[in-house]
């Protein structure tokens, strides 16, 4: 069963002559453990799709299901709880709180969800250790490199029992080496059962996904088949 499902989702901003159709009739389902990339140019509706999937914004038409529950039937409090407990977000500009250390940033969603500060920090520390950032736990965001900041934001996104990871251009501000390590972390989270959606204009980033969907002018226009394995490179005659 899909963990995230979008059914006939459309999003319109404004009215009359200023009406803008950001999304048109989007259908998408993401199974637990799957990594899906949504690829498209700037202004194609990628980020809108992600904010609607993550319940940060409502669809104008259609329905979004997260963990089998319809978002349109949830109260604001229930949506906030869902976001705190089940959904992790990764943004291009990291969105770490500058006044908190790395481990405090990671532990914050757990504390907001009622876990005692000490316990939350222990869980946060374990998440940082897993990402090789234990020695940076007490550093503030401005004392970390761009790659380290993004790894901290991934730790924050997957800490606890998160089941859905939504990433908006997660390596946009990073060099290719750090971009690759960010995608390895996202992939590792998926292999543990997390469902992930990454939106990007970067083909190298998208190529880490199990399936790549192409969006243009708010519509899904195409997707990769995802069926061919690497061994087909040996038979397809692709020159090295």
């Amino acid at each position, binding site marked *: 069963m899909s963990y995230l499902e979008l059914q006939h989702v459309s999003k319109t901003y404004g009215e009359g002559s200023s009406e803008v159709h950001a999304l048109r009739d989007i259908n998408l389902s993401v199974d637990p453990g799957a990594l899906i990339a949504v690829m498209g140019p700037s202004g194609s509706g990628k980020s809108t799709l992600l904010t609607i999937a993550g319940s940060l914004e409502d669809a104008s038409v259609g329905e979004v299901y997260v963990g089998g529950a319809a978002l349109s039937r949830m109260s604001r409090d229930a949506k906030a709880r869902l976001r705190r407990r089940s959904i992790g977000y990764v943004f291009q500009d990291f969105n770490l709180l500058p006044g908190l250390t790395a481990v405090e940033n990671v532990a914050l969603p757990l504390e907001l969800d009622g876990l005692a500060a000490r316990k939350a920090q222990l869980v946060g520390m374990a998440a940082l250790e897993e990402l090789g950032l234990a020695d940076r736990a007490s550093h503030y965001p401005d004392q970390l490199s761009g790659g380290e900041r993004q790894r901290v934001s991934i730790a924050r996104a997957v800490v606890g029992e998160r089941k859905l990871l939504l990433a908006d251009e997660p390596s946009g501000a990073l060099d290719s080496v750090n971009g690759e390590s960010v995608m*390895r972390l996202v992939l590792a989270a998926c292999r543990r059962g997390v469902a992930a959606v990454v939106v990007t204009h970067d*083909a190298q980033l998208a*190529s880490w996904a199990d399936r790549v969907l*192409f969006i243009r002018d708010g519509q899904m*226009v195409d997707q*990769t088949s995802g069926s061919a394995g*690497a061994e087909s*490179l040996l038979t397809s005659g692709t020159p*090295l």
Partner: protein
Amino acid sequence: MKVLVAIRVPGVDVREVIQTHRRYLVELMQQWTHLKEDEARFDLSFALVVDAELYRLDSVVRWLDAADGRLKRAKFEPPPAISPPLPKIRKRVEAPR
């Protein structure tokens, strides 16, 4: 080259041609990336070859993105399809009996 040809062929949606080519390239990139997923079993020389191929394919995708954007900005419309002229039907003329 196929994009240049496509903009001259009547009835062809060049942006569809671009998208088909883009999808094919991204599928190839997925296959190459899959090879380097398991870093522990990754030979350095092979890693360099895989990276080289990924950057080569990526550069073509970027060119397709640029071409797609240029066509959109230019509001390019494909030349209308021209239907071939119908063959002339000869009138059957019957000989007077």
